[in-house]
């Protein structure tokens, strides 16, 4: 009987484990291996270069700039998404009628592809010509058209990048907050009301936010990791057939061009990927420790 259940375990788990190993772990280990070789235009290099690719990547201004781009993006997107999704969750949680409708409306963008959304933003809403939606609205007020994605000063492209991601992901995090809100014991709010706490900011600050602590920690961690992995909207909004502007190039876009562009420097690209993975791991662990992720009150 025990033997049979083990067999069924592997029947169901085996294909997924094999897929995971074949398409994730093997390429991952291969990539780490490549990072120590001169792997230009080859995935089976022979010339061992030690840490040369790592030092070259760390000295590369463009790679360091891409990390700065990520920091700016994170500084915008994490707090903005946090506030917007929490606000949406609080509003939807209070709604007394058509609750399912509002939840669906705000959640639906999460089902949309980043590529599709980026193209809608680029070609329809924030097109730089006078008949783009945003420019049409500006035109009503007699303002000149703005080349939203082509102007680094002022950096309007950030508005496009932030709004598209916000539209796509706020609904998902709203659902997480909604789940957290529904786990809060209503007796706490009743007790607060009895003690004279007025509904609004006081209750939010002293009851809702502390009760949502675990959810908030998870949301912030997910937001930071997702921001590090930003690629789709950056690439689809800002690249063209000839390249990509240096002023908004996040790390993954830079590594894509290094390893998979015509240069095909897979050694250098792999070194960059390892560095990026280490940065994400360090930031995530530090953040988790700082926010005391996984600890209960009893743990102190």
């Amino acid at each position, binding site marked *: 009987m025990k033997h049979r259940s083990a067999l069924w375990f592997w029947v169901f788990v085996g294909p997924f484990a094999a897929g995971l190993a074949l398409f994730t772990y093997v390429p991952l280990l291969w990539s780490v291996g490549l990072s120590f070789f001169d792997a230009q235009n080859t995935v089976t290099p022979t010339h061992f270069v030690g840490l040369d690719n790592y030092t070259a990547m760390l000295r590369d201004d463009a790679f360091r700039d891409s990390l700065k781009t990520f920091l700016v993006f994170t500084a915008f997107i994490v707090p903005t998404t946090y506030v917007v999704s929490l606000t949406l969750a609080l509003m939807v949680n209070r709604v007394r009628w058509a609750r399912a409708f509002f939840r669906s409306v705000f959640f639906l963008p999460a089902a949309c592809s980043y590529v599709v959304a980026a193209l809608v933003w680029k070609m329809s809403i924030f097109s730089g*010509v006078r008949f783009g939606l945003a420019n049409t609205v500006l035109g009503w007020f007699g303002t000149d058209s703005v080349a939203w994605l082509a102007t680094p000063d002022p950096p309007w492209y950030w508005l496009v990048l932030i709004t598209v991601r916000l539209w796509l992901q706020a609904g998902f995090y709203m659902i997480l907050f909604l789940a957290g809100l529904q786990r809060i014991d209503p007796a706490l709010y009743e007790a607060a009301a009895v003690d004279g706490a007025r509904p609004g900011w006081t209750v939010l600050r002293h009851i809702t936010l502390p009760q949502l602590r675990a959810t908030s920690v998870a949301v912030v961690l997910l937001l930071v990791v997702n921001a590090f992995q930003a690629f789709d909207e950056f690439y689809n909004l800002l690249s063209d057939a000839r390249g990509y502007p240096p002023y908004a190039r996040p790390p993954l876009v830079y590594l894509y061009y290094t390893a998979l562009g015509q240069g095909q420097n897979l050694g250098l690209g792999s070194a960059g990927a390892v560095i990026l993975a280490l940065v994400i791991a360090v930031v995530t662990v530090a953040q988790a420790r700082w926010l005391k992720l996984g600890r209960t009150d009893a743990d102190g």
Partner: protein
Amino acid sequence: MAVSRRGLLGAGAGVGLLAACGGNTGRGDGKGGTRLAQWYHQYGEAGTEQAVKRYAAGYDKADVSVQWRPGDYDRQTAAALLTDSGPDVFEGSPTLDQIQGGQVVDLTDLLDEVKDDFNPAVLTPKTYDGKIWGIPQVIDMQLLYYRKSLLKAAGVEPPTTLDALVDAAKRLTDSKVKGLFLGNDGGAGVLAGTPLNAAGLQLVTDDGKVGFDDPAAARTLGKLHHLYTDKSLLLGAPTDWSDPAAFLQGLTAMQWSGLWALPQISKELGDDFGVLPFPKDGPHGAPAVPVGAYGSAVSARSRHREAAKEYVKWLWVERTDHQEDFALSYGFHIPARVSLARKAAKLRSGPAADAVRLTTEHGHAQPLLWTPASQTAYQDALVRIIKGGANPESEVRAVVRKVGAELDRVKKKR
């Protein structure tokens, strides 16, 4: 050993599944003999795909399957050349790293008798160490289209110097029409080395050194920033420089685009347009136009290298009727063979004849030694100069250092 019906069915299903997973890579031997996979990037002109499939179907020594590949074609081929499932024959411009890495096959012997008939402007960038790594298919070039009526209304002459271009773009700009469209990135991508050529400089010299370590480079590139600060440039158009839509829709009075756009512009604007090279700048400058050509190349990982070479020779060396048809019947290109270009009636009059003349007199091809890393460094600097107002001198100095290091790297591999 007896095989049960269930076992036989299971084995059959397994084999079927494996076969389905394998797919048709276009490789291996078919019934009629050798099978070759040939890749083309997606051309915009109607009829081109059918034409190349018709040529392939007419080849009787191998079964050639044509793949028409949309998207980021150069990156697709670069990745495919690393694997055994890539194409046998592909159109593209083999990079120096691909040649030095042994990813493409030497095709020198295919041109033994006709090498002199191929336009040197496009054959030279396919040549390395005296060997030819791609057979040029057609010549493409870029040029400046201008709307005669708009220039006349503004009292502007077609610009022949870079200063005149900056001035004309400013005078042609109003609340609805911009003076000039150089692409949504302000020209950094498409112009590449053309402004340097217009200043009398090169990207890489004939003896393999950095060709723009000169004060003229910073002076010329700095002028492109004026176009941006004057708000004379169209930015954020629905389609990029390669599509003449912005020019045809009246969003811009002048547009930098390709020769391929000429038939469409001619059809919609009639005689109300002219073509110009990128105007000269400085005392040693000269007008410039970029020329380029995809070549037909053979993957070194092909299991049928000789058959693939034979096919390339048949298609792009022997069948001149196909070459002429491919260059002139669908889009608008200059045949890579000088003899074909000379006799093409479509290239003898009007702006088409001007374009051919500009190619001959002022054409510059991107040198093979100009690597993707050099291109990225230069293009980044150009974006910073044009849009960010970065100091051209320091930007050019940094690019010269980077390109110098790249040239040293590729020379070491020689």
